[in-house]
């Protein structure tokens, strides 16, 4: 009886990719100097290209390849303006206005976490303890999205490949194995080389996911007979931004899918990219820079890198909408049409995987593009694992017990221990929550929380009059408004107020107003502190 199982070649390609990644990252360990400063911030030695690639790779999560294609399939052409072009302007703004100044302050005073800076700037230990659970709480869902994202990509891809070994999972690799491999690889190089290994690994992974995105784009367009033919068969409602209702008939029945983007959502979404100003893992990457000038390439090239990744992905998402409007140039096979039409909104992230599976029959190419998707996921995971280990070590243990009580080697060992614990916790949580429908919607809530806290860092850096009480008021106002809207959304679903306004705009406004009003009526920071940060 002939073996009808799909080829396992994509899995072999992925194993080769992961081995290469591990090999490169372990080579970078040879450059590790063994000090805590090197483990946390690579001794401020990272050059322009590595900084660009590591910052870009960290900023672009699984959402860059998988989510952007799915969002364009769901919402249409406005996806790029909504999420990508605004990020090109605002991310670079944050790098320029916040990143460079924090790098200078961090280098001068030896900070390796945001909380260390905020504690000194606002003369308050308590502010650190208030910020700690908030920052960690906002990073954790971000981590889970990455690991669960790997399950959602690898599960369908490997379906039927291992019918004897994993019969209980329809022959696909089970989540426990996928998670163990992904988390294990990332943990290995972070454990060994800290932020230096993360920078090298991120550079490799960023190059891989950028190249593989373009490769998938080229091959899928060829399948349609070129880009002009591909766009011709796209659904017309997806080529404009005006919202409309699309009626879809599938095996599951007839339902409507909202297409387009409400104008107020498009406007207020501009606040979301501000989140990079408060990402703790990005703060740590900024501090790895060799000099302020190192930032120049990152500031200038970041919008172009976004363009290279997002334009092809959005176009692929638009082409996939052809399943709603069959035309002579439509090349989608019937099974693909049936699956895509029936996808609930929470699962549209599977569009890229489905396009690969049905349109690209070469298993090596499928393996390579899937490696690109995993690269995008892992290039964010490593920085987040490392930053949480750094925060626990520095802001809780060393801050409470006193840095002088530990040798430098003990501090590195402690950070490694925390990283292992965080990876294990993330792995277990991801297995428990893998079936959650709206897990990807948590990303925008995580970003919203960080973005709404931007007034805190901006005032800390540019407003001498910003006070300790103002900082507390800002954080409390943001948390209160964020929790209110999060609860109103049903704890994680897509949610807007006032005909399309994103909650982040109101949370940001509340935080900024609280900071300004309370600072103006409370005691000024000491002259010593003002002189320290505003010399």
């Amino acid at each position, binding site marked *: 009886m002939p073996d009808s199982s799909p080829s396992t070649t994509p899995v072999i390609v992925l194993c080769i990719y992961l081995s290469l990644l591990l090999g490169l990252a372990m080579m970078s360990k040879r450059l590790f100097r063994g000090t805590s400063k090197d483990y946390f911030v690579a001794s401020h030695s990272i050059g322009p290209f590595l900084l660009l690639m590591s910052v870009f790779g960290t900023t672009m999560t699984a959402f860059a390849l998988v989510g952007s294609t799915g969002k364009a399939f769901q919402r249409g*052409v*406005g996806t*790029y*303006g909504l999420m*990508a*072009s*605004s990020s*090109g*302007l605002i991310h*670079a*703004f944050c790098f*320029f206005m916040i990143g*460079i*100044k924090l*790098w*200078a*302050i961090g*280098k*001068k*005073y030896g900070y390796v976490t945001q909380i260390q800076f905020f504690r000194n700037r606002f003369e308050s230990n308590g502010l650190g303890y208030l910020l700690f659970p908030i920052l960690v709480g906002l990073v954790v869902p971000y981590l889970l999205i990455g690991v669960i994202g790997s399950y959602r990509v690898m599960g369908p891809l490997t379906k039927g490949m291992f019918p004897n070994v994993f019969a209980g999972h329809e022959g696909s690799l089970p989540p426990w194995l996928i998670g163990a491999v992904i988390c294990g690889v990332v943990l290995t190089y972070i454990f060994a080389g800290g932020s230096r290994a993360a920078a090298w690994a991120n550079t490799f992974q960023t190059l891989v996911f950028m190249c593989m995105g373009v490769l998938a784009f080229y091959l899928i367009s060829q399948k349609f007979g*070129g*880009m*002009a033919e*591909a*766009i011709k068969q796209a659904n*017309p409602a997806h*080529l*404009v*931004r*005006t919202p409309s209702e699309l009626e879809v008939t599938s095996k599951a029945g007839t339902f409507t899918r909202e297409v387009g983007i409400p*104008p107020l959502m*498009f*406007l207020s979404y*501009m606040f979301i990219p501000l989140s990079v100003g408060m990402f703790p893992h990005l703060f740590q990457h900024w501090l790895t820079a060799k*000099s*302020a*000038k190192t930032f*120049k390439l990152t*500031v*200038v*090239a*970041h*919008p*172009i890198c*976004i*363009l290279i990744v997002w*334009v092809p992905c*959005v*176009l692929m998402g*638009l082409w996939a909408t052809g399943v709603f409007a069959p035309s002579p140039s439509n090349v989608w096979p019937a099974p693909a049409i049936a699956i895509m039409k029936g996808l609930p909104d929470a699962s549209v992230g599977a569009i890229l995987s489905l396009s690969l599976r049905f349109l690209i029959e070469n298993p090596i190419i499928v393996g390579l593009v899937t490696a690109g998707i995993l690269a995008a996921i892992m290039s964010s995971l490593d920085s987040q694992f490392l930053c949480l280990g750094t925060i626990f070590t520095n802001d809780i243990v060393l801050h409470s017990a006193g840095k002088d009580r530990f040798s430098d080697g003990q501090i590195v060992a402690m950070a490694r221990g925390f990283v292992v614990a965080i990876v294990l916790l993330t792995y277990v949580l991801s297995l428990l929550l893998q079936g959650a429908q709206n897990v990807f919607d948590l990303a925008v809530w995580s970003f919203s929380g960080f973005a709404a806290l931007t007034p805190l860092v901006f005032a800390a850096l540019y407003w001498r009059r910003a006070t300790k009480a103002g900082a507390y008021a800002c954080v409390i106002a943001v948390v209160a408004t964020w929790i209110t809207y999060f609860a109103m959304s049903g704890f994680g679903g897509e949610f807007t107020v006032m005909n399309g306004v994103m909650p982040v705009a109101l949370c940001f406004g509340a935080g900024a107003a609280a900071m300004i009003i309370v600072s103006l009526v409370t005691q000024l920071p000491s002259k010593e502190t003002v002189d320290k940060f505003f*010399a």
Partner: protein
Amino acid sequence: MRSPIVIGIFVFLALAHQDFWLWDDPSLVFGFIPIALFYHASYSIAAAIFWGLVSKFAWPTYLEAWADEGEDGTSAD
């Protein structure tokens, strides 16, 4: 480059992001790219050029020297 000019261009770019005049336009540029996508792809290039000019003419060079000073204002080297 003076700060008001930088701020002015930044505000202009932020406003230009709201391309309401293309909201209903389904036309294709070069026969394959929807005009709304083409506009925002061009916008990304404009943002890169803007930040390139800022990097060339408004870079905070003083920060580097300040960061390299010791906490007492002397050179850390």
